[in-house]
């Protein structure tokens, strides 16, 4: 998918004034934050499971080659095939090659963020293959020609009336006076539209929340049933999975499953958790004839070797997005790529490079809420700070900022002189402000005063008062530099 993170500031500028987006985000956070809290409170052992899950993931990453090999052996033993793709070109070509091999004209798709990375739908389209998204949120944004704005609820930026308008335009064979004002009626309409499409598709493409080495299985965790219809009714089942999804055993998957749905939507278990392990077996009355797992690297091995290794623990639950006040203010499209929110601020630069994503690691207050709710305790603020450090090293940080910081630090590393300078400035400001005690405008602080007054300083330095005070310690004359 094309990167537009370079336009972050423009996107943000639009987004903060978008009342429709604000309403939509309010609904998302209003539902998912209390849901998660309730689910976590309902499992007293949640923190133990987090610790255990983290150890499983880090162990798996340490031995990832071994587990991927075991996975491949078992997929093949089950009658399936595994394809290895180092980058997005390779992955696209592989999937296209499979479509050619099986004479695929139409493809149904379950939700898969890694296929968004690949820009798969546009690519297939260009090659005369019709992809049809079946997850409700993905279906809606496909009709609108938009990209997902949330990793599990792709249409989160839309309100009901937006979706109704989209359906009105796209489903023009239906009665224009039909009821379309409830979530129920819109869901029902999508259900009916897609009903026959699963069986008519030549191939079904799904993603993978996890892969299990022990059994050669890929797992999808869903609620709608479209992922299962996609993979069961088409003749060919293609799974596209990024390689860090691998886990050793079913029990390890069980640990992750106790964390995933609770962190994502607040469910103890999603409606459908499905292990797919190959094509139909002799005697089966349904299921695809062939099963192909396309394993994608696309930058993960670089992360494994580098300082972003911990990010590979990510379960793609979206808890960080749902709790991030920055994400809530600007929505997912502002981030300019597949992954948004706090995880996107680390993953996007890690996968597509720092040059195009300058703002992403910087647009954070490091409030730490993301890390607090992350089931894998990923230290997202620390990882963002590391990326900021890389930007400094590689001189990607704008010159003006580097110069200002250098000036400030050369001043602040000389405390007495620093206080002399700041004392003078604040004294002047205090006098200027007078009785009003705030400034509605100040030079160089345009970005502050656009939305806030700037409080006037009291004037002078703390140390002036301290020395003049009757404090016992000040009269002792503690002074050393």
């Amino acid at each position, binding site marked *: 998918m094309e990167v537009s993170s370079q336009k972050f500031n423009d996107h943000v500028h639009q987004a903060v004034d978008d009342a429709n987006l604000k309403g939509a985000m309010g609904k998302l956070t209003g539902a998912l934050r209390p849901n998660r809290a309730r689910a976590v409170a309902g499992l007293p052992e949640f923190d133990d499971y987090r610790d255990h899950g983290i150890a499983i993931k880090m162990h798996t990453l340490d031995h990832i080659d071994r587990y991927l090999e075991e996975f491949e052996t078992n997929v093949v033993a089950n009658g399936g095939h595994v394809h290895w793709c*180092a980058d997005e070109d390779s992955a696209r070509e592989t999937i296209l090659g499979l479509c050619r091999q099986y004479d695929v004209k139409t493809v149904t798709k379950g939700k898969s963020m890694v296929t968004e990375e690949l820009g798969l739908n546009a690519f297939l389209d260009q090659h005369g293959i019709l992809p049809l998204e079946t997850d409700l949120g993905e279906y809606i944004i496909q009709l609108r020609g938009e990209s997902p704005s949330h990793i599990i609820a792709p249409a989160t930026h839309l309100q009901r009336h937006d979706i109704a308008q989209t359906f009105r335009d796209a489903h023009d064979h239906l009665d224009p006076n039909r009821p379309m004002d409830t979530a129920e009626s819109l869901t029902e309409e999508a259900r009916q539209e897609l009903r026959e499409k699963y069986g008519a598709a030549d191939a079904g493409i799904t993603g993978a929340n996890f892969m299990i080495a022990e059994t050669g299985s890929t797992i999808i965790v869903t609620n709608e049933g479209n992922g299962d219809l996609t993979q069961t009714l088409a003749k060919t089942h293609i799974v596209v999975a990024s390689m860090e999804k691998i886990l050793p055993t079913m029990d390890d998957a069980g640990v992750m499953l106790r964390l995933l749905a609770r962190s994502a939507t607040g469910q103890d278990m999603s*409606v459908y958790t499905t292990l*797919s392990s190959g094509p139909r077996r002799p005697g089966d009355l349904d299921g695809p004839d062939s099963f192909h797992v396309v394993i994608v690297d696309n930058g993960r091995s670089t992360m494994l070797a580098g300082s972003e290794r911990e990010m590979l623990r990510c379960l793609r639950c979206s808890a960080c997005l749902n709790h991030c006040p920055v994400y809530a203010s600007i929505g997912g499209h502002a981030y300019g790529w597949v992954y948004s929110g706090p995880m996107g601020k680390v993953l996007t630069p890690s996968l597509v490079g720092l040059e195009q994503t300058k703002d992403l690691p910087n647009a954070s207050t490091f409030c730490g809420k993301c890390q607090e709710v992350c089931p894998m305790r990923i230290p997202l603020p620390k990882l963002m700070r590391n990326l900021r450090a890389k930007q400094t090293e590689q001189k990607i940080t704008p010159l003006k900022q580097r110069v200002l910081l250098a000036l400030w630090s050369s001043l602040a590393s000389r405390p007495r002189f620093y206080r002399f300078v700041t004392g003078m400035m604040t004294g002047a400001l205090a006098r200027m402000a007078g009785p009003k005690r705030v400034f509605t405008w100040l030079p160089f602080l345009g970005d502050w005063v656009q939305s806030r007054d700037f409080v006037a300083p009291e004037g002078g330095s703390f140390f002036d008062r301290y020395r003049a005070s009757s404090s016992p310690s000040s009269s002792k004359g503690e002074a050393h530099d």
Partner: protein
Amino acid sequence: MINARNDRAEIFARLREANAGRQKTPHPGAIAPPKKGSFSGKSRFDQFIEAATAQYASIAEVSRFADIPASVSDWLKGQNLPRDLVVAPILSGYDWDQIKDIRPRVGAATTSDMVGVSLALSAAAETGTVMMVASEHTPTTLNFVPDVDIIAISKKDIEAGLEGCWEKLRGWKKTNPMPRAVNFITGPSRTADVEATMVLGAHGPRRLHLILVDEKSPWPKLP
């Protein structure tokens, strides 16, 4: 050749290099199931009912598998639901023909089928979840295509939590291939993609009805 490139060697070289010389994290082993996933006896059964009901499944109880056709018929009638059913082969041997007003056929489901009836291999009381396997006895489509999904489960097959389900699967694999699909199902399908509002009945079944049977299940004996 699907793709002229074969990146396998390249990828594995990078992975091995990334991990070379690292202090390895040991696997932490097993973790005790949570309290909610550790019940036995009546508590386990009560937990299953509570959890499944909370997820909008409806529940009926019968003593024997032979009672299923009548139970299904009564329930469909009471709910004013269609009477055409598609039944899993493993449940086809019961006296469906003796029950008036239902029209069963045996096999996989198509989009014309409104009601599917199948049998679970296992279940997890912790979350009110049933575990289905794709097999000659139990086609997967029965659980996803029809509007109404009816699943029978022997009470003896209800485990405390997922751990028991994994063990059941390992037992299955000793004498069968790994099932093409293993479906853990908790309630009817749903979505919250429109304004984060939950709507029951998305693309999968709108209704899930569980029939709990006192008797041992008709699954072929597992090791």
